[in-house]
């Protein structure tokens, strides 16, 4: 029964997004739509007064996660008929059918010494049965309960949509502050729901383009420390950073290989001035040049199997996207449309490449298949760039910069602000990812271990 439901849901998604894509072609942006699933997310019950609040908080985090995904509508708590104490014993499915909840989440929190014991059950209301249950032990201090909330959110998302989860993840990005044109740019990290925000660098030097390791708590990024723009590696757990390689010129645009053992990046030999793509082995510290072309070669990204690299080059007439073998052989252009293409990123699902496109003075975020077929734009703005994939390949995050308006003396009147956004890759449910300061260059972590 469950399998059938999931299949049906997936077909519904496909049908809806495809039919809308063709209708919306005239404005160039494909806006899919999905029918979100109504779900009742109840407060996690506790008979211990010291756990009541965390029970409520867990429920709220899960509810916010699922709502932001665009695939669920959490029903308002005021509509619930069965109370939590009674639900904790046994759900009365009739009570939940009346308010049209397709799914029901119940849970409870107990205290055991210094730990919370958090348990949950997910029900299919119409089938009248439990789909999945689980339990977690987590320290009472701090807010480790948030991670449990994300892990439960992922369980629910996976069971109901049939796709991988993405809630137990973090975002590293560039936090920007200060006057336009002289913005301080700092590395910052936060949970995907914007909680636990932390600055990783102090702003005394500029940092750009952080990217998460797919296998460890490490970030690679570009730093202008000592006025020498180079690629660095930051260990989140140790709070330490180190330079990647010993290059006499600028290194930039880094990304990890899928196994986390290598970094691919651009290097500009200062005696030549041209940017070529290099792969650096983080264990042996040996580097290998893999492009050799008078054009600018930049923004490399590995395929998930580690065998290919997609990159951006202005060889030829304009900036286009090219795919090559990891040894630099078999270079093929994949982008075919008008306009210029930048910052390709290979989906963790392997099927798509997301990119930035500039055409007719407008910026777009788009996706295409890995051979360049079926290109479609999913977001459009005065300026939007730098997509990053959620680990399940379902969402993209990127940043937009608003147009800067100045007065007759050149002072900024408005605009010029950078903000993070995320969207479902069908082009549906674009929303801002709120950050304390301005934000740019987001990079999504893999699911936490």
């Amino acid at each position, binding site marked *: 029964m469950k399998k059938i439901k999931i299949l049906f849901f997936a077909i519904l998604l496909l049908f809806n997004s495809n039919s809308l894509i063709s209708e919306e072609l005239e404005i160039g942006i494909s806006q899919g739509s999905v029918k979100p699933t109504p779900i009742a997310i109840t407060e996690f019950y506790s008979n211990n007064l010291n756990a009541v609040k965390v029970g409520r908080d867990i429920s709220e985090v899960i509810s916010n996660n699922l709502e932001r995904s665009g695939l669920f509508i959490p029903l308002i708590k005021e509509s619930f008929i069965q109370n939590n104490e009674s639900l904790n014993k046994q759900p009365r499915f009739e009570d939940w059918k009346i308010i049209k909840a397709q799914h029901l989440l119940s849970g409870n929190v107990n205290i055991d010494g210094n730990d919370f014991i958090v348990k949950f059950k997910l029900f299919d209301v119409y089938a009248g049965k439990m789909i999945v249950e689980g339990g977690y032990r987590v320290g009472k201090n701090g807010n480790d309960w948030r991670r449990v909330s994300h892990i439960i959110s992922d369980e629910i998302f996976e069971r109901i949509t049939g796709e991988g989860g993405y809630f137990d993840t973090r975002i590293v990005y560039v936090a920007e502050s200060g006057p336009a044109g002289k913005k301080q740019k700092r590395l910052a990290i936060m949970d995907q729901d914007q909680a636990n925000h932390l600055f990783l660098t102090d702003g005394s030097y500029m940092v750009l383009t952080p990217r998460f390791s797919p296998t460890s708590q490490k970030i690679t990024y570009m730093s202008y420390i000592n006025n020498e723009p180079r690629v660095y590696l930051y260990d989140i757990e140790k709070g330490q950073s180190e330079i990647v390689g010993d290059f006499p010129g*600028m290194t930039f645009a880094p990304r990890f290989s899928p196994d986390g053992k290598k970094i691919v990046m651009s290097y500009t030999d200062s005696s030549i001035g041209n940017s070529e793509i290099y792969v650096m082995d983080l264990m042996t510290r040996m580097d290998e040049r893999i492009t050799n072309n008078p054009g600018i070669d930049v923004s490399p990204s590995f395929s998930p199997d580690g065998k290919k690299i997609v990159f951006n080059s202005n060889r030829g007439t304009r900036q286009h996207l090219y795919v090559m073998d990891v040894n630099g052989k078999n270079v093929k252009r994949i982008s075919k449309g008008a306009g210029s293409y930048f910052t390709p990123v290979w989906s963790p699902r392997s099927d798509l490449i997301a990119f930035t496109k500039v055409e007719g003075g407008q910026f777009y975020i788009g996706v295409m298949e890995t051979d360049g077929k079926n290109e479609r734009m999913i977001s459009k703005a005065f300026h939007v760039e730098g997509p990053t994939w959620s680990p399940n390949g379902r969402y993209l995050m990127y940043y937009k910069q608003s*147009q*800067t308006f100045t007065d007759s003396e050149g002072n900024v009147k408005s605009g010029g602000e950078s903000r993070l956004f995320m969207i479902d890759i069908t082009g549906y449910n674009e929303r801002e990812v709120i950050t304390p300061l301005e934000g740019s260059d987001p990079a999504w972590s893999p699911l936490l271990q």
Partner: protein
Amino acid sequence: MLLRILSTVFMLFFIAACGSTPKDTASSSDAGTITETSSVSGGVAGGTQDDLVINVGDRVFFGYDSHDLSSDAQEQLQVQASWMKQYSEVSLTVEGHCDERGTREYNIALGERRAQAMKNYLIGLGVEAGRLSTISYGKERPAVLGSNDAAYAQNRRAVAVVN
């Protein structure tokens, strides 16, 4: 050419604002003709950043997505090369910059090419390579704010900074 005139006007304004008597430069409508500049001109010491900015010109401009030096830019760099020869102890960092209408990563590469274009041209005019280094800031350090073509034109630049 419009940009050159604008920057000349700006320089004159700057000098006037400093309260000095711009004897050498005020007589000329072209910031490039500074052959009579002595070691102290317009109240600034020769061979300094101020000297470079006020009496020589510290920057050249580029077309959209280009790192080619225009004839105006080449003319400007000839003046700069003479100045470098006059002050043989001076070394420069050439900063490459871009307008905001590109991606961060591509613009970092493009900015480096602009800085290299300026550096290589100066080397071609006889300035020792060891006195010139480059750095690219991509689009991160605009000289002029605003999302308009006039601002973009001012931001597509390579700028010499005295070390």
